[in-house]
């Protein structure tokens, strides 16, 4: 298969890329750190990838998206799977008080993803096949005090994906929304870890499986579906007093 991974140096994306490499797939990787990108490309070749190419790009530069997707398509010929994984966890206090700060993180987590989806949708529609998978978050399902700026951007992407899924359906293009819970990755290095935390490899397995099975919205691990069912059921009058 031909796999495009955007935000390829994220811990979850690395684990996912390795699973595809073991299946002897072809990969095109996009991320902003050139050193880590080329180390990862070598790693994937050793693990079995038939071919790997990569491109360093700061994804906030939305103007460059069309060209980079074109480059990926030229290398892969056909895109079977496109995974969008990049994201940032902004400092909530800073982004709640400083609009610029909020805008930066919403650009990375929300707008840049929508720009990429716009380009990908065009090409996938033309090739009349393929799967688009995007990592959003359970944080997008209800605005919580400690991370609602992050959550708002993720919610924007999830809502966008719902509509896009409908639009691309008739073109045989599938859209998967992956919503991880708590993942022990560089993004969350500063948090103490407990029972509910998962390793990136667990989420990666879920991504590969849900793409293969053409699922729509998946929680990673699956028990987050039930946790969120509970979180969403909490009456607002109570929820607004909760600090978690």
């Amino acid at each position, binding site marked *: 298969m031909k796999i495009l991974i955007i935000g390829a140096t994220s811990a979850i994306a690395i684990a996912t890329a390795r699973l595809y490499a073991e299946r002897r797939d072809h990969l095109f990787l996009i991320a902003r750190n050139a050193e880590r990108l080329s180390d990862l490309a070598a790693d994937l070749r*050793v*693990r079995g990838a038939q071919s790997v190419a990569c491109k360093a790009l700061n994804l906030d530069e939305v103007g460059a998206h069309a060209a980079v997707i074109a480059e990926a398509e030229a290398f892969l010929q056909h895109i079977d799977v496109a995974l969008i994984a990049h994201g940032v966890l902004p400092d909530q206090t800073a982004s709640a008080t400083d609009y610029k700060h909020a805008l930066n993180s919403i650009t990375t987590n929300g707008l840049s993803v929508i720009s990429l989806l716009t380009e990908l949708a065009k090409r996938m529609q033309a090739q009349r096949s393929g799967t688009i998978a995007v990592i959003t978050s359970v944080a997008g399902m209800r605005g919580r005090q400690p991370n609602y700026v992050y959550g708002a951007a993720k919610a924007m992407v999830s809502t966008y994906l719902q509509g896009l899924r409908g639009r691309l359906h008739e073109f045989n293009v599938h859209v998967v929304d992956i919503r991880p819970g708590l993942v022990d990755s560089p993004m969350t290095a500063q948090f103490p870890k407990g029972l509910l935390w998962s390793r990136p490899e667990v989420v990666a397995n879920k991504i590969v499986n849900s793409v293969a099975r053409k699922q729509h919205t998946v929680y990673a691990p699956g028990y987050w579906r039930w946790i969120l069912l509970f979180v969403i059921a909490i009456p607002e009058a109570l929820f607004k007093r909760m600090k978690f």
Partner: protein
Amino acid sequence: MELSGWGRFPVVSAEFVEPLDFSSLQMLLASSDPSAKLVPRGAGLSYGDSALAARVIGSRFMDNFSAIDETARTIRCGSGVSLRQLLRLCMPRGWFLPVVPGTANVSVGGAIAADVHGKNHHLDGSFCDHVLDLTLLLANGELIRCSKTSNPELFQATCGGMGLTGIIIEATLQLREVPGVFIQRRSLLAHSLRECFELFEVNSASSYSVAWLDCLARGKQQGRSVLYLGEHVDVSNKRPSQHPTRGWLTVPFDLPASLLNSYSLNLFNSAYFQAKRYAPKSDTVNSTSYFFPLDGIAHWNRLYGQRGFLQYQCLIPDDGAFEAISAILHKVSRAGKGSFLSVLKKMGAANSNLLSFPGPGYTLALDFKFEPGLFALLEELDAVVLAYGGRLYLAKDARMSEAVFKAGYPQWEKFVTLKQKIDPHGLFASQQSDRVGLTQAVR
């Protein structure tokens, strides 16, 4: 952040960083205060305080493979790669690691730093005997390549050097072709320690050998055990599971330590031994279940309760090994302390690494839950070990004294001299190295 080893004793509060790439690691080293000690850490599976210090650098994200040579059967990879990941690459090719410890979750860096041994030490030596070269980041920020032939002194100090010479970045490993990834296992029952020793001697040509021992059996039954022998076999009609998987069972929380007492341990040990009487004497098993039986149960260290546990692993030279081990078992069973996992193994020749644990003789490993009075018992065991010219394994240790360490590792002075040359400010130091006098506790 609270950190501990696999035994969960001791626990220290440390600054823990896991660099994402080599440049950030170098920057971290360059910008760090040279007087604040630092130690590298792999998977954190050493039992005690080998990978604990005020500042700890984790290799979790240094886990890329960089090259594979299909004809020479070598792999070059980052020090954070786990043996499990290596096996995932090797097993489908019909290759295997020449040396594996009892868990596949250890990192390559940790396996080199402790120069780990496996069930085939008597024939194949230890992990570092199959390391072709490694790159090491020194305290001064210099990246240096070393092997048995280039910078051999540094290589001999780093292999088994417990992270005190610098941070291992990458290593090239020699893999070997095996007839198959299944293991033909033979189980031999020994009704006494003497019988167990004899079985080890008689079966010294067997590729893999290790004995599980009932550490609480007394009198004539002292040392009753099951010796497991193994050979790689080709079982073409069976599909091996090529991807060793992680825990399918998990211990979700700490069990009350009181569940482990002399009664329950006695019961377990006797039942295990009795069950083995009727178990098949020869069977074919998946190599992962043969080598890593406990990896199927995630967090099994929680069985020992919140206060954690210690493993006591000693090596006794051949001469006197029987007497020493029988004296140790006597003390342990008299105290009624002990464990599920008492393991005895005959070891082979030593290599030239300065602080490597293995050498000719017998090694005995015993688990003890942490409880008052334990240290007094372990000090009694230390006296036996020293009296017979033995040593304790640093990778399992959380409490040995400077005197016990120095008596067991006669090359410690050579190590310290070299360390002073490459790390004059003593940047790399662990809680353990301070305790055993390899580094200076207060400067």
